[in-house]
């Protein structure tokens, strides 16, 4: 039913909800540009600071321990006098590496399972989706804790435990996409042209699914970083000599209880800012490849 009556005065103007006016557009562009700048800054800092800056992040200076933020140490120093800004950059580097490795593994597994389920159909589809349902009925952090506890904390158990709990959403997305693609005319054309199942899957279905899978992978990186930090914080993650952001927050607990807030605050901010920036960029990307989802929530 359409109603062309003017909106009563005093009521919130309805079109504002889906406003695409010039003002909205400019704030959106600003958000995308800020996100892009922050992601670029993160990647550059993580890639360039360690080789270019000849500073030792482990350099202990007991004379300068637990100093509040100052010009010499913008983030202050920790309980043995190490510079926190440098420690945070190195921690972000480790967290980001673990996050990217876990997200890539999870995306490969999820895409393979989802594509197989969607393309094969029938009982194979049902069985694979049962596996997905079973995996998602165990809380993810708990499964991660269990795997890391059994295999001893370390880089690979953490990557594998994060990957094992994150491929489920990708599998569901890819399966849904393949199911909707299967009935398209160009697939029928390929099949009637004599293409094998394998050829249809690899040459026709997979390329069409890749943008969605790549978007899911990008959105998964902050999730994976969050998981790694939580495990490291609980003492079930990375060893202290490969300090990540979670290990830094865990190590700062003693100083926090003595009243020093900076060793806890800054590693957390280093986790939040890239997460928001990546989410902002991925949101813009999603709007571009799928404008219908513009108003949908993204968490």
């Amino acid at each position, binding site marked *: *039913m359409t*109603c062309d*009556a003017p*909106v*009563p005065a*005093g*009521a*919130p103007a*309805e079109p*504002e*909800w*889906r*406003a695409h006016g010039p003002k*909205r557009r400019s704030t959106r562009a600003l958000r995308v540009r800020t996100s892009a700048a922050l992601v670029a800054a993160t990647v550059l800092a993580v890639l360039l600071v360690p080789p270019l800056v000849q500073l030792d992040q482990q350099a202990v200076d007991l004379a300068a321990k637990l100093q509040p933020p100052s010009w010499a140490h913008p983030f202050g120093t920790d309980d043995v006098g190490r510079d926190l800004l440098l420690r945070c950059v190195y921690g972000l580097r480790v967290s980001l590496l673990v996050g990217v490795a876990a997200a890539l593994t999870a995306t490969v597994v999820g895409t393979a399972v989802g594509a197989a389920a969607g393309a094969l159909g029938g009982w194979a589809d049902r069985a694979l989706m049962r596996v997905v*349902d*079973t995996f*998602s*009925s*165990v*809380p*993810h*952090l*708990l*499964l991660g*804790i*269990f*795997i*890391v*506890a*059994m*295999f*001893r904390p370390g880089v690979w158990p953490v990557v594998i435990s994060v990957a094992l709990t994150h491929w489920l959403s990708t599998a569901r997305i890819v399966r849904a996409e393949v199911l909707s693609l299967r009935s398209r005319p160009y697939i029928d054309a390929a099949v009637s042209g004599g293409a094998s199942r394998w050829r249809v899957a690899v040459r026709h279905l997979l390329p069409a699914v890749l943008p969605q899978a790549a978007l899911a992978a990008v959105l998964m990186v*902050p999730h994976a970083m*969050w998981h790694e*930090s*939580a495990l490291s*914080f*609980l*003492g*079930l993650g990375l060893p202290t000599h490969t300090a990540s952001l*979670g290990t830094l*927050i865990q190590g*700062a*607990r003693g100083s*926090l*209880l003595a*009243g020093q*807030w900076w060793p*806890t*605050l800054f*590693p*957390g901010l280093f*986790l*939040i800012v890239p*997460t*928001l920036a990546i*989410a902002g960029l991925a949101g813009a990307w999603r709007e571009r490849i799928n404008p219908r989802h513009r*108003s949908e*929530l993204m*968490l």
Partner: protein
Amino acid sequence: MARLAGRRALFAVPVLLVVTFGVFAIAAASPFDPVKAYAGTAALGADQQTLDRLRENLGVDQPFAARWWHWLTSALTGDLGHSGVMRQPVAQVIGERLVWSALLCAVAFAAAVLAGTLLGVLAARRPGSLVDRTVTSLAYTLEAAPVFWIALLAIWLFALQWDVLPAGGLTDTGSAQVTPGQVTSHLVLPAGVLAVSQLPWFTLYVRQGVGDALAEDPVRGARARGLSERTVLLGHALRSGLLPVLTLIGSRVPELITGALLVESVFSWPGIAAATVEAATAVDFPLLAALTTLATAAVLAGNLLADLLYGLFDPRVKLSDM
């Protein structure tokens, strides 16, 4: 209704069987050795014969499938094994601690639902306004913030700087009894942090639901009839906007458990989530296996609740069709 619940509960049984089997399979594939874990440092000096005898006594010389079956059958009679790190039977650990976890999660979740509804409605009322933009960006920031980090900063602010709330535990140190007053004051901080970690999701969904409902024809019709803004907002928009959110509540159990794992550890809250972390640090397999199973059962129960609420509250869904 009861038949539907029963049928859905039956579907949960195979999932639980597979999860427990998977737990034993992962343990069997891992370098974890139950004999050495049982004997501790004594295993270092023991000769192979003693270790083999111990292995036989513990029953771990059998294949993991046989051990799984043994665990499952004795679990059904209430015997979940012995926890090494807690030095008491696993069933007793769960019995003593479950009530505290349930209290923490229930209070936190209720607070998150109430505050989330309030903030979501406030934000949806005037889309694009200052209130809306503040609430939305705050929600996204909180969603990105790790809950253990928020917990630590909350301890710093409330327990150390202002000294208004205790930093952790269930009772004051030196107190022999658990009194309701002490529990309440110790509950505020952990429950508040857990609520804050669940708040963003709820706020954003209520905002979306109510905002969409405000743009629909029934609301326009209510306004055209001259109903007050309050009636329109609470009676029409909130009622239909909250519906999809209410049905999703049950599916939030995994996130609640994840949050509880971290919050209980930070605040030394004596619940089962903190026990899980302790069990993992000490590689206490019997306790870890039981708690993983329990958490899975809680998730499945949450899913069942979500399905039932969906059928109860949405008049378009017939229970007989589900």
